[in-house]
């Protein structure tokens, strides 16, 4: 990809004596994972399109500590948290948006007790608010009428009771939204949470992402929509395992909206 979108950093804003409307917390997956970087770019395009005054921390951002905490390494988690909070508080951050439900949960729920109190939104919630404010238009475009099923990320859904924002956005795309038999609060995990993303699974009869992909395939979707870079990886692997990658795409909600409008 050649096109570069202007992505200001907090440091640049500070140098100009300005403060952005919102900090975009990119997250480790969004920064380094090849698949997740595409989600980051799609979301940035949408932010530009809606004229959102945003900035990123860039090289000053560091892992929120979520995988360390869920592995049991509270020390490492708090070291990460305290460092990140110092950076964010120095920039007087008030509002944060992130495309990763794990970062979202950690920033929103676990940082306040350590001195980091921000209004934290998942990117689907933020996009929904832009839509409601009339700053963003979402149209069906090329996804109109497609069969799409949404996989609830555990850390967005059960963990924080956000079920409707991503679905509202998908409905705006005029797609045929089909629910899996296990959805919303009963949604099955993709298998990546609790730091499972970074290790081999324990012995069993099946991998969790295969089980979840089977749930999704039952709905005979054209596209599996996700709202988390880790779910995205797990579901993409699952679809490949089922040799369905030619007919079924796994896409983030932000990508769907950006692509629908050929941004």
């Amino acid at each position: 990809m050649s096109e570069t979108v202007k992505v200001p950093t907090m440091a640049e804003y500070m140098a100009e004596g300005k403060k952005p409307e919102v900090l975009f917390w990119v997250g480790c997956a969004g920064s380094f994972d090849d698949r997740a970087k595409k989600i980051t770019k799609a979301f940035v395009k949408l932010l530009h399109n809606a004229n959102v005054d945003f900035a990123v921390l860039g090289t000053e951002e560091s892992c929120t500590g979520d995988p360390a905490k869920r592995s049991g390494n509270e020390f490492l988690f708090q070291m990460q948290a305290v460092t990140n909070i110092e950076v964010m508080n120095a920039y007087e951050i008030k509002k944060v948006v992130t495309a990763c439900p794990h970062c979202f949960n950690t920033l929103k729920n676990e940082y306040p007790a350590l001195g980091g109190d921000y209004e934290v939104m998942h990117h689907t919630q933020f996009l929904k608010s832009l839509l409601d404010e009339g700053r963003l238009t979402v149209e069906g475009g090329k996804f109109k009428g497609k069969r799409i099923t949404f996989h609830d990320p555990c850390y967005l859904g059960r963990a924080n009771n956000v079920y409707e924002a991503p679905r509202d956005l998908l409905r705006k795309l005029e797609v045929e939204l089909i629910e899996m038999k296990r959805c919303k609060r009963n949604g099955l995990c993709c298998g990546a949470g609790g730091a499972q993303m970074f290790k081999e699974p324990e012995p069993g009869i099946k991998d969790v992402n295969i089980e979840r992909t089977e749930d999704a395939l039952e709905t005979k979707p054209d596209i599996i929509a996700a709202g988390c870079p880790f779910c995205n990886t797990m579901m993409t692997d699952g679809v490949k395992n089922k040799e369905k990658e030619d007919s079924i795409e796994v896409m983030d909600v932000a990508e769907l909206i950006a692509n629908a409008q050929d941004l």
Partner: protein
Amino acid sequence: MQYIPNIIFVIALIAGIGYFTKNIRKVIRNIRLGKDVDRTDNKKERFSNMMRIAFGQSKMVRRPIAGILHVIVYIGFIIINIEVLEIIIDGIFGTHRIFRFLGGFYDFLIGSFEILALLVLVSVFIFWIRRNVININRFKSLKGWPKNDGNIILYFEVVLMTLFLTMNAADLQLQNLGADHYMKAGAYPVSQYISPLFNGLSEGALVLIERVAWWMHIIGILIFLNYLYFSKHLHILLAFPNTYYGDLKPKGQMDNLEAVTKEVMLMMDPNADPFAAPPEDEAEVEPEKFGASDVMDLNWVQLLNSYTCTECGRCTSECPANQTGKKLSPRKIMMDTRDRLQEVGDNIDNNGSFVDDGKQLLNDYITQEELWACTSCNACVEACPVSIDPLSIILDMRRYLVMEQSAAPSDLNNMMSNIENNGAPWPFNQMDRLNWNQE
């Protein structure tokens, strides 16, 4: 001599309630072995949770078949206890059907008890079929004592309900005979169909049947009350405090360990003297253990959770790790916690205070393989009809493994050292964080 039944009754009542109280005190003492955690906040929300989830059974009915059957047995349990009150008064004072003076309302009460008793019998029959005949994995996977325990409770219900109806059937016959002491009272919509079985029996035989059923019914209730402590069935009492003291935070929020915060803040404080000697009074204090390797390291709500668990297995049936054949079962986490807590309690009973028995919750009960299979997805927490949180125990035990023993799987150690060294779970340089924008 005429007061002998009354005296026997009072002795049985005192013995039954006394022994139960003794054991409940043990449960409370064992729960208090846990660490302190503050759950005194938001009393209103807590009370409403208790009314909705425990009293109102709101999460039970999410699975409609088991849920509705459970509601029937639950209502039966609560309502029929009014009858037990009458039995106790009659037993102490040698009266018969003391609430008879309520007239039409008494007929209504006894009539509805009978209908409920029948519905309970039907529900219990279906429960037994579900546990023993139909292939329901969460019941099929129970073996040994837990399986027998579940069935024994059902048999108790059958016996108690049958005795209740038999007692009424004999009573009805006696009322119709105009027997002494058996005045016309009550409506018998169910036992009127059992009553013909006793046609032609003498008054003496009928009184014998009625008395035997009456005595066995109340003694059965006292035995059942005392069985609770030894079984998985304490949930009929503990579901209420357990839902009251449940976690109110978003499910994704895991507590920040305060002991760690102190250390981290000290490390981050540029003014802290790294060579400072510890203050005199702190020098002798053993540093706090991070995480949990045994039940005493858990908090009292987690221990209350373990006594509340009735082993229904909804958690395990929703667990992604369990569904895909891993060893982890959230129900087993709760059962193991209770078994170990009970063992520690018995140890205290026998020795006056806890004497190291060379065992602990970790490894002797719960293996590391189980703990590392958890995806922290909260499906088990969501599934529990009485607000039990198996995930918090899993996390506390992982904390012990990582912070006290450095015993994480090597993949996770790599992930953690990446975070430490370059601020991401993968080995990428932090300076490259914005490169996605240039590609």
